[in-house]
């Protein structure tokens, strides 16, 4: 807002989590204090894993509500608005975890405006915890500032931790946390005086991330199944399972574009990762540019001596040449296949390839579709491929599709000083498989519209979630079976799922948000359909896209296939104009990050320090 001509009456963030499904409502009320109309901005950041579900503005008693529309239709409306010179609101990428939603409206003199943004997400268990991240940047002091989070977990809470990046010793006691067995209440509500940076000044201390981390009690055997309002959700992450040994081939890109800091961070991360290998694991290191070079011709048991020798080798990887991803990965695949055939690897163990590259194959096979085909057919469903896409130029969707086609995951590694930690973090997530080929069975005559119920691995610290619709809304229980391959024996459990009575469990609470199990199911289904629309067989792709679009519209989720359209009020300057909120894809975020990285470099550059010139790009034309 402009100086003190706008008063922020209140900012409230109200988050309710029921069985990992988080529903957040951000409300801001502002008053235009001057005697003329002026533009007021509402800008909030939300997790990129969240879907916006609603947005409204109340101006002079009139409420303008957002409507989720098919993206193409909304785009047409948007284009029309732009061509007639009107403005449109957009969602933009903001850092690694968040995206920014921003709108502005013209407010009449001495009147107020209320903005309400609602978004929902299924919290993912990573490294043994769920995280609720709320970014608050009110820019000025707020009469009533409040963050309230209520967590309802029928499984019981094992711990809840709340902290914020802006908490000083004075603000710390203001975080109130009440935790009982199945419920947690966390609130933070500083007064105007407590928000102040210093006595008498207008600056606010409230600027940063408010983070809540928690975990639930792990349920042995079958896991936790909840049946609510005709839908069920099954959370499976049993405790105390021994880890399955792994056979991991690290395929490392050492091409010219990895030169400098990227290569250095890769070496550092590899050294740390190798150090963490378990003695029961087997490992191999392959480095590639236009040539493929492997440390040893087969996988090596991770004894202390072998790990030390591997670290010696990894510490000497140097950049050179072009990028032959195809042959690098295939060498790794063949090595695993051959070692399996020659029975050099434990029978019950997980085979995985971890590819680290900054992309852009340009030697050997450089057609990415062909590489995907080659890798898929060589792997033949027998191992997992995890891809780490390093830097801003990497073709992330190529790696994303390739890993999903091969029972794996891709992750972007951002070029920054903490890239080593990002690499290690990803490795930790996938380094401890507990079960392989996990199947979750439900009776066909009781449930349908199941989300994915087969998983190649269950990793330590993560959680498998399956949801579905009950055929008979009155079903109170049904038989559930889980199969998987464990370390020494098969994992096989069966049991009865039974309905949870939320009213009994939380007698003092009002209706939390009744349809959350259905919305959780819808969220999960849409996410999986969106993945299938990118990496599934071609005949399934268009079907998956169409279904995902239908469901996004039905449940009012702003996904990459839909947009939210809000019609701005008419102003003196012109007629109504639509505001459009989109969901960014990872590729769009990458483009934005690239721009930010560039901005960072340029910012260094424009400082009046002569030496800074050496660290920034220059584009020029001059005489020969």
């Amino acid at each position, binding site marked *: 807002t402009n100086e003190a001509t706008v008063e922020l009456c209140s900012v409230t963030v109200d988050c309710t989590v029921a069985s990992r499904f988080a529903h957040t409502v951000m409300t801001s009320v502002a008053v235009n204090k001057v005697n003329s109309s002026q533009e007021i901005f509402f800008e909030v950041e939300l997790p990129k894993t969240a879907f916006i579900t609603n947005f409204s503005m109340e101006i002079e008693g009139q409420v303008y509500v957002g409507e989720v529309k098919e993206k193409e239709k909304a785009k047409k409306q948007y284009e029309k608005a732009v061509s007639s010179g009107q403005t449109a609101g957009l969602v933009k990428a903001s850092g690694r975890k968040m995206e920014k939603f921003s709108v502005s409206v013209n407010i009449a003199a001495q009147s107020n405006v209320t903005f309400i943004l609602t978004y929902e997400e299924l919290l993912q268990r990573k490294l043994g915890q769920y995280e609720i991240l709320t970014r608050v940047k009110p820019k000025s002091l707020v009469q009533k500032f409040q963050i309230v989070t209520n967590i309802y977990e029928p499984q019981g809470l094992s711990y809840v931790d709340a902290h914020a990046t802006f908490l000083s010793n004075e603000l710390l006691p203001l975080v109130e946390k009440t935790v009982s067995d199945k419920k947690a209440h966390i609130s933070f509500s500083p007064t105007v005086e407590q928000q102040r940076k210093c006595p008498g000044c207008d600056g606010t201390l409230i600027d940063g991330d408010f983070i809540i981390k928690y975990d639930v009690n792990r349920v042995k055997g079958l896991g936790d199944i909840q049946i609510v309002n005709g839908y069920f959700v099954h959370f499976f992450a049993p405790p105390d399972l021994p880890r399955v040994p792994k056979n991991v081939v690290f395929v490392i890109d050492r*091409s*010219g*574009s990895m*030169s*400098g800091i990227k290569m250095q961070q890769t070496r550092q991360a590899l050294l740390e990762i190798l150090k963490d290998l378990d003695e029961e694991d087997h490992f191999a290191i392959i480095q590639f*540019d*236009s040539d493929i070079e492997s440390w040893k011709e087969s996988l090596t048991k991770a004894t202390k001596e072998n790990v030390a020798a591997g670290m010696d080798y990894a510490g000497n990887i140097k950049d*050179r*040449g*072009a*990028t032959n991803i195809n042959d690098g990965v295939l060498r790794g695949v063949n090595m695993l296949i051959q070692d399996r055939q020659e029975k050099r690897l434990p029978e019950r163990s997980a085979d995985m390839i971890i590819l680290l590259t900054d992309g*852009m194959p*340009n*030697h050997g096979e*450089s057609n990415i579709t062909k590489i995907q085909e080659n890798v898929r057919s060589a792997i033949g469903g027998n191992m997992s491929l995890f891809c780490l896409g390093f830097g*801003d*130029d990497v073709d992330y969707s190529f790696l994303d599709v390739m890993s999903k086609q091969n029972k794996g995951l891709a992750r972007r590694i951002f070029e920054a000083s903490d890239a080593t930690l990002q690499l290690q973090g990803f490795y930790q997530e996938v380094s401890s498989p507990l079960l392989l080929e996990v199947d979750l069975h439900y009776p066909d005559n009781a449930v349908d519209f199941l989300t994915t119920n087969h998983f190649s691995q269950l990793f330590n610290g993560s959680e498998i979630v399956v949801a579905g619709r009950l055929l008979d809304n009155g079903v109170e229980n049904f038989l559930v079976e889980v199969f998987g391959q464990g370390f020494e024996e098969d994992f096989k459990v069966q049991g009865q799922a039974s309905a949870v009575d939320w009213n009994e469990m939380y007698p003092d609470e009002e209706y939390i948000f009744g349809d959350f199990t259905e919305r959780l199911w819808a969220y999960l289904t849409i996410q999986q359909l969106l993945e299938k629309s990118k990496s599934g067989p071609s005949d399934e792709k268009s079907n998956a896209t169409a279904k995902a679009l239908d469901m996004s519209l039905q449940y009012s989720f702003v996904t990459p296939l839909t947009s939210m359209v809000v019609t701005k009020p008419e102003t003196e300057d012109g007629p109504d104009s639509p505001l459009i909120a989109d969901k960014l894809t990872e590729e769009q975020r990458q*483009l934005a990050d*690239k*721009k930010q990285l*560039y*901005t960072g*470099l*340029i*910012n260094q*550059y*424009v400082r009046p320090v002569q030496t800074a010139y*050496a*660290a*920034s*790009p*220059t*584009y*020029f*034309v*001059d*005489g*020969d």
Partner: protein
Amino acid sequence: PHFMIELPDREDALCFNINDKPGTIFNLVRDPTSGILVNGQTIGDKMIPPDGHVNTYFCRFGIVHQTLGVRLEVSTQDISVFQDNKWVKLQWSETASLKGPNVDLLLTKDRSLTVTLKDSVKFVILLHKVWKKHPYHRDYLGFYTLDSHLLSPVVHGLLGQFYHGIAFEVTDLRPGEVPEKPDATMYVKERQLNVTRGWQRDFRKDVKNGENVPCWFIHSNGTGLIDGNVTDYIVSGLF
């Protein structure tokens, strides 16, 4: 004129020459989102030098910021600025500083003009003054982008297309025609190019002699590195 894309984070640079008939106007930067346009017109030497090679240089730049309503015409003779609905003319023979609501100019006598267009782009135009009685050469200009981070992702043009970075790899270094200029293979924009290691000069610190910047030289008017063909960048007028 020689074009240079310096990438210090890779400790490397790319360069290419563009040669066409004197008088041709090229588009250097075009950002439809912010309404920025930079075009430049070339001139040739006074007469054909003994080596028979006709060099061209930029002698006139036309810069437009549609949204801000700013226009600039910079030639080797003088500088004209249009803002707030009026034209202001400056001479290279003066030192001046002009601060407007939308554009800041800093003119250093007979040497450089630094232009900052509000919330969009900052650049420097260098004046290369050549001895008036030189048998072949004449005055020419250089254009250096200092800050373009606010331009949109769709920015294009002979320089603009590189403003958001470029990914490339160089391999297969081999002896070239000249011993100190080896050849290599460059992979860029899904193409494979034969490039030569050479250097071009950056005249910002030393307008007379310049500083050598080693770079990978892309032959044939930057073919393969630039999007499309050089003729795609020819425009009919300075504005």
